[in-house]
């Protein structure tokens, strides 16, 4: 294994700094929201993690398609990395959504289209890992994984649209004129700044984690290869 590249070390440091900056912007810089108070501050991490979760989801589906075309195992490693990191971030998104829902609507869970879609995506990811765990042959595992991420990638947007049809019964969080009355809010300029900082920070962290995870994937393959060589 080649030693850690300098660029990655720089990225590591950058990730830690940007996480700190994003936390500062969310907790100190952004003004306290009028209707909900402090809890609104989880919003910045909520949308930040949701954004990279979605990014990972889309990248995984694209990597799946590329893998099916050129059968290069590197794309499989990329896909697994994207799914794994995305699972982690969506978990944060969902928990933060739930924590927000509690004081805002007096319930731990709302069937909001976005939150529900995120939860279903998380279930698709769990199914994805269970599928991979059941297959011995790495090539077949990669192939089936790619097919499944592709199916997921297409079904999730349709899921979102379908769930929106049920919204008459459920509150919409943002972007609706009556949103505030239902527990949403409108954003001030500083809030938008804090949100954008959070987007940028999580993007950097995402890239950093992806890089590390792909390297681990490469290391795993190397170990497997050596095991075969030694046992021969």
């Amino acid at each position, binding site marked *: 294994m080649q030693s850690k590249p300098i660029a990655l070390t720089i990225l590591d440091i950058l990730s830690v700094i940007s996480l700190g900056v994003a936390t500062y912007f969310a907790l100190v810089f952004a003004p306290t929201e009028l209707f909900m108070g402090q809890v609104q501050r989880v919003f910045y991490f909520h949308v930040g993690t949701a954004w990279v979760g979605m990014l990972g989801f889309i990248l995984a589906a694209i990597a799946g398609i590329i893998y099916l075309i050129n059968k290069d195992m590197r794309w499989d490693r990329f896909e697994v990395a994207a799914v794994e990191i995305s699972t982690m971030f969506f978990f944060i998104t969902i928990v933060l959504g739930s924590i927000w829902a509690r004081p805002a609507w007096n319930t731990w869970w709302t069937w909001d289209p976005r939150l529900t879609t995120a939860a279903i995506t998380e279930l698709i990811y769990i199914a994805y890992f269970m599928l991979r765990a059941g297959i011995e*042959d*790495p*090539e077949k595992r990669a192939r089936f994984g790619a097919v499944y991420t592709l199916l997921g990638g297409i079904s999730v947007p349709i899921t979102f649209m379908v769930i929106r049809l049920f919204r008459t019964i459920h509150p919409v969080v943002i972007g609706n004129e009556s949103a505030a009355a239902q527990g949403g809010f409108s954003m001030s300029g500083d809030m938008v700044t804090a949100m954008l900082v959070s987007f940028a920070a999580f993007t950097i962290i995402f890239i950093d984690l992806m890089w590390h995870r792909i390297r681990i994937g490469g290391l795993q*393959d190397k170990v*497997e*290869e050596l095991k*075969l060589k030694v046992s021969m």
Partner: protein
Amino acid sequence: MIEVKKLVKRFGLKTILRGLDFHVEPGEFVALLGPNGAGKTTFLRILASLSRPSMGSVKVAGYSLPNDSANVRARLGVVSHMPLLYPDLTAEENLHFYAQMYGLANYQPRITEVLEMIGLEARRKDLVRTFSRGMQQRLAIGRAVLHDPEVVLFDEPYTGLDQDASEMLDEVLRSVAAKGRTVVMTSHDLARAEDLATRFDILSRGVIAASAKREDFKDSNLLDFYKKSLES
């Protein structure tokens, strides 16, 4: 009839076949021998177009795999240790179905002919689930030669058969092979292979380690030949 050059097959990181060369003249009956895990079944599955070669060229009946697989399939019959038959259909219905899948025209007389050849004419209307293992295997051979293929592949056809059933299968194998088809068969059973084949190839560690014609060695030293080629 079959030409294989520099065939490599990998499953993930495991290399099963390493640059295998193999050549079969029309009308030859080649017995492919070798220890477990040598890659016999894998090789046969590649010849049968069920598995893709990782590298190298494979030509069967003048068509190359995997690009011309439809042409190869039409000229190929396969008998494996699994019967490839539907237990809830009668013998005749099974053949009927496969005749349709091979696009045969006016197949009724051919089905009767095949059923007579394999000695199951009397039980044509019986469900395959009521057949003994030996009868199923004979019907599997009938299924494989239904479309009068130029090349026939046998993968361990004797698995799970008792003495009587094996002898009966020998009979059917011979009458099938005698019809001027090219045959490749894998088997553990050296004695049976010795009776049937005209050429013996030893597959070991992913390559053809040795090859000998029947006339090359005088009576009954296939076992010695087999042992010697595995040791070297």
